[in-house]
């Protein structure tokens, strides 16, 4: 795979973080791009974390929690599911490819599934390439567009 991209993962402690541990224990090799932020629950994820991270220059954001109905806190991922789906659908309007954000469910026992998720998402982000940042990159683009309209 080409040069590492910046991919940030937000994982719930009880299922997906454990799933990533299980993948480690099983030596299920994965691409190295992902950096994981551990949270108690996918319900802790304010959709703004995703937006802040992507507009701040991350090339991809991955959220993973317990499978629906299997939340350590009963309902956290039910709320997360709605909020994260909304974020994913919101991205196109601000000019960010929705493929740069995924949310999924991986349980603590699903080490292999975690490997599949990380591999799949990393490939997906690499296919999209480095993100264009708000601020510098987009300003250049805006100027270019303005020039082409003039």
């Amino acid at each position: 795979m080409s040069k590492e991209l910046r991919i940030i993962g937000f994982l719930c402690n009880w299922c997906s973080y454990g799933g990533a541990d299980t993948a480690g224990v099983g030596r299920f090799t994965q691409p190295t791009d992902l950096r994981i932020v551990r949270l108690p629950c996918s319900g802790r994820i304010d959709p703004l974390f995703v937006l802040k991270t992507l507009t701040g220059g991350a090339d991809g954001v991955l959220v993973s929690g317990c499978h629906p109905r299997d939340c350590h806190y009963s309902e956290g991922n039910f709320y997360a599911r709605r909020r994260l789906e909304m974020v994913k659908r919101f991205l196109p309007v601000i000019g960010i490819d929705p493929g740069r954000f995924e949310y999924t469910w991986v349980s603590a026992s699903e080490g292999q599934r975690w490997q599949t998720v990380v591999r799949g998402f990393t490939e997906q982000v690499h296919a999209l390439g480095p993100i264009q940042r708000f601020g510098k990159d987009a300003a250049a683009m805006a100027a270019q567009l303005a020039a082409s309209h003039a």
Partner: protein
Amino acid sequence: MKIGVFICHCGSNIAGTVDVAKVAEMAKSLPEVAFASDTMYACSEPGQEGIINAIKEKGLDGAVVASCTPRMHGPTFMRTVARAGLNPYMFEMANIREHVSWIGKDKEANTAKALDLVRMAVAKLARNKPLFAKSFAINKRVLVLGGGVAGIQAALDCADGGLEVVLVEKTTTIGGKMAKLDKTFPTVDCSCCILGPKMVDVAQHPNITLYASAEVDEINGYVGNFQVKVRKKPTYVDWKLCTGCGACLEKCPSKKSPDLFNEFVGTTTAINIPFPQAIPKKASIDAGSCIKFKTGKCGVCAKVCPVKAINYEMEPEIVTEEVGAVIAATGYDLMDWTVYEQYGGGRYKDVITSLQYERLLSASGPTGGHIKRPSDGKEPKTVVFIQCVGSRDKSVGRPYCSGFCCMYTAKQAILTKDHIPDSESYVFYMDIRAPGKMYDEFTRRAMEEYGAKYVRGRVSMVYPSGGRYVVRGVDTLAGTQVEVEADLVVLAVGAEGAAGAAHLAEKLRISYDSYGFYMESHPKLKPVETNTAGVYVAGCVQGPKDIPTSVAQGSAAAAKVLALFSKDQLQSDPQVSSVDLKRCVGCMKCAMTCPFGAIKEQEVRGEIKAQVIETMCQGCGLCTATCPQGAIQLQHFTDNQILAEINTLLESELEETQG
């Protein structure tokens, strides 16, 4: 703030693919870091002493340990930091083993990633605050789910330890799978004879409340204070009155009811006591086959019952129990072997499961302990056992070994010879797995003393031929095709989580795998704990086990509960939400989403504000993600702490693009 960073080699586990010395060296340049070093085993005695000494000598305010997962050694190092005189929450962990060294091959990339994780941990720790646990009262009662041998053992041990126990069993009797077995390996002693006394103990123990024919509807609360709604399913017999005399069974005209206890070998009466040693020894009606329920006529049992215990109008009843801990021991079920079309997919009457065969062997079974073919009642002379049906078979999605089949197949081969001395047994096997005390000797006896013919190879098909069955397989040792004409074929069907296990796990808020087995906290070091405090597992609910291991786990889970309840109060996790009263606008959206009802309104100088009930807050942080003002913050996972981690990563990206 002065932060110390400790990078663990974990022998070669981390150092093999991460340049730990470099990470430690680079960590020295991070903001707030006043000390950084690498250490061979951070968790070892000298490793921990090194951390303590550094904290004391350098006057550190907090420590970052970069090693394995915090789910493993987080608590270990929190205690280390506390021993050095710091608040245990002034600590962060960077997981550079499970999340780095074990999954990445490129040392350079791994090292960069490890450094990033350290940077994140440092950035977060710089915003950590000391947190202090609060004490709360607990309810020293325990709920045991499942009345198999593991649940029975757990219930008895807890009860003997002085705890009040609520035992919930979904069928009408306890005993579980063990009660269905004829004999047990490797001693070949009578299963019911060794289990029976324990079942009686359960019935008679003053500390045990048994709900048979009951299931858990709902579990709320948290460790020390669970509220459980138990649904008592209608048995249509008032068990307070029923004496178990059996008069109703004798007179019941509906004799074609499916016989659950006997694994559907033969039939039974619609009103029924599953077996003579059943606990509770009470009758119950199978409404699905009872004539009274189907046609409204009959009512014979009500007429003959000497104590008038029959009540056709019985409704389900919900009982609420308050407990402080839960032991899940719901066991296993056999996988649906009918996916094996090549073995007839369930169409051949004389191709049966090993558990059905146990019932044929049992003196209390439908044949009175005489082995008879289900099709014609004749005594089989050639019995073929096929092992690994639904075990170690990826083609049916069952890659794991069920563990106990090798042993019970050997036992059944021995018993077959005992019952029918002129019979012949063939066992098709993949490998013989007999790693237990006297286990391998036992399988040898089956072969050598009892003449069971072991064929190493899989059976490709079974088909009927003139009242018998041709079993075609391969003998991989001889390298030849084998065909055996059998009178009876017994399949050693593999185990999976009990029906409804997944649903129950969701109520318990614990993880389970795709086979319905529950996830333990740690596969080696915490085999009976789960990731939900106060919830334990015992027996086959966690994975296939034989009887001694299930019993050991029952006792282990009981020991865990007894240890938990050895204190009068528990310490609450201080990672709870906290409201900034100045900033809260009282919209109460937090309370609307809190799954635990842990947020209530309060009035502060005439204004409505949110208030967290700390012992009820479980620390999920849903409120923090919901509050638009960010006025309610989950301690230890505040917005600023998470933002610090994010910003740290984005900064390193920025430097890269600029550099």
